[in-house]
């Protein structure tokens, strides 16, 4: 079975430990070196077939996270992935170095938050700096808004990423129907949910073809069928984001649906579908499918 994770920022394991325990690994909200209150309200809005958010990386900062939050997360008995963010390559290196001694399973490099300023350096430099700072598995999380996501994925691979997390949100805008003013405090926010699904599929498809790296696929997954599509496009694990908001029981449901849907297609294990969407094309064989999470 492909591991099932939560998407960063879409679950607080300490507020909902049972939901976290229903996953194969828990991914934290992005942590930055310094604490952040996040953006002003209004921070969320529903849109047709999805939602917008502008949380703005609200987090306690690295020190507080490592000293206070992480020990409690590690007690839950679920492998913990820490998502790290920042505004320069040094921020990522600092966080990775600090986490290198901790009992975390993997580190996700969030280089793609649409609601805060982008880091100054290119993804390749950030990954290289992080790589130099830790031996932990590194998953680089990319934006679907990149003009050539596969090229950036390749650059991340060159710099030593172990895998990719695809995709983060797209930038979007919603207006209040009565005032025609932006609903969100920062005007634009990140688009997630079903509307992101075809975009995520395309990014996973392109990055798998380019790199063959392990990929955590996400973007609008609500059912086992959606997860299987991402796997066929090249994902080796899936993450649930927006669906968790209305259905905290989604992990168990999606896992069962995924097994059933794959079985109906004649696949013993859904992972056997990995890359099937590429059958016609010339493909590098996947170099590695292992995802650091508990697998039953």
């Amino acid at each position, binding site marked *: 079975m492909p591991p099932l994770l939560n998407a960063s920022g879409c679950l607080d394991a300490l507020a*909902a430990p049972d*939901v976290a325990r229903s996953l194969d690994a828990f991914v934290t909200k992005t942590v930055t070196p310094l604490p952040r209150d996040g953006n*002003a*309200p*209004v921070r*969320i809005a529903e849109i047709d077939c999805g*939602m917008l958010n502008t*949380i703005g990386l609200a987090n306690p900062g690295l020190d507080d996270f490592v000293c206070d939050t992480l020990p409690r997360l590690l007690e839950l008995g679920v492998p913990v992935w820490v998502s790290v963010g920042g505004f320069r390559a040094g921020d990522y290196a600092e966080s990775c170095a600090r986490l290198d001694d901790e009992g975390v399973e993997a580190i996700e490099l969030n280089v793609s938050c649409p609601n805060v300023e982008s880091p100054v350096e290119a993804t390749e430099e950030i990954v290289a700096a992080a790589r130099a700072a830790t031996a932990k598995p590194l998953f680089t999380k990319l934006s679907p808004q990149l003009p050539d996501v596969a090229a950036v994925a390749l650059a991340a691979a060159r710099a030593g990423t172990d895998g990719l997390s695809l995709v983060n949100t797209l930038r979007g805008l919603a207006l209040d129907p009565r005032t025609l003013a932006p609903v969100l405090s920062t005007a634009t926010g990140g688009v997630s949910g079903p509307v992101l699904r075809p975009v995520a599929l395309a990014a996973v498809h392109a990055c798998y073809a380019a790199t063959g790296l392990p990929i955590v696929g996400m973007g609008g997954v609500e059912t086992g069928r959606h997860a299987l599509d991402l796997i066929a496009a090249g994902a080796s694990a899936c993450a649930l984001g927006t669906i968790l908001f*209305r259905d905290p029981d989604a992990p168990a449901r999606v896992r069962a649906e995924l097994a059933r849907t794959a079985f109906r297609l004649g696949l013993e294990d859904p992972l056997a579908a990995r890359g099937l969407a590429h059958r016609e094309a010339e493909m590098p064989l996947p170099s590695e499918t292992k995802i650091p999470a508990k697998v039953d």
Partner: protein
Amino acid sequence: MLRREAPSVVAVEPLGAYSLLRVERATLECGDPGQFFMLTPPGRTLPRAFSLCLAPPGELAFLVDPVGLGTRALVELQPGDRLPVLGPLGRGFRLDVPRPLLVGGGIGIAPLVYAAERLGRAPAILGFRTPEHAKAASLLQGAEVVIEPTYVTERLSPGRDVLACGPEPMLHAVACLAPSAQLAWEAPMACGYGACFGCAVEIRGRLRRLCVEGPVLTAADVVPAELEAA
């Protein structure tokens, strides 16, 4: 432990400008007055927050103001339709107060109806925009009803332990008049259980999640000291 079920709708009963949405209780708990449930309207990506209004035997009942896409979809539900319900969530009213007074504005009367039931008898002042909206006051026997341009805050008697829910300007006015008041606030909520950080409001000087710390807060949690002093 989060409880989620998809019980059947028993009835949707118009009540003036609002509707009372009654669903089967299934294995869900009623919780404390002021706690809330997330209901997912058909066809919507996100659930919506609703205070429990009534707890008839075997049922949960919510008072719905059909202001937008989700609330309108809810009042169009038919008996027998399944409705995903998550809850109860958040922190409700403390009921162990010596001289409770329920103060509600508009749809904010919803949690006060259940609070009155749990308190036994408690005086209530309810304010509404129009006589049509005021019809919902029938849910709270014996309540004093005022209709704009009169405001509930004009009728607040001192020395009472106020439990209030209503529009933000009303809550701010109550907070200034009754510093010990318990106030039930609203914020846009995507999840209701602490997962999204979407519901952040300023509480004790910092942005915190209303669904975790509230929705019921004390006046001191929200009113800066200088405003109170003024």
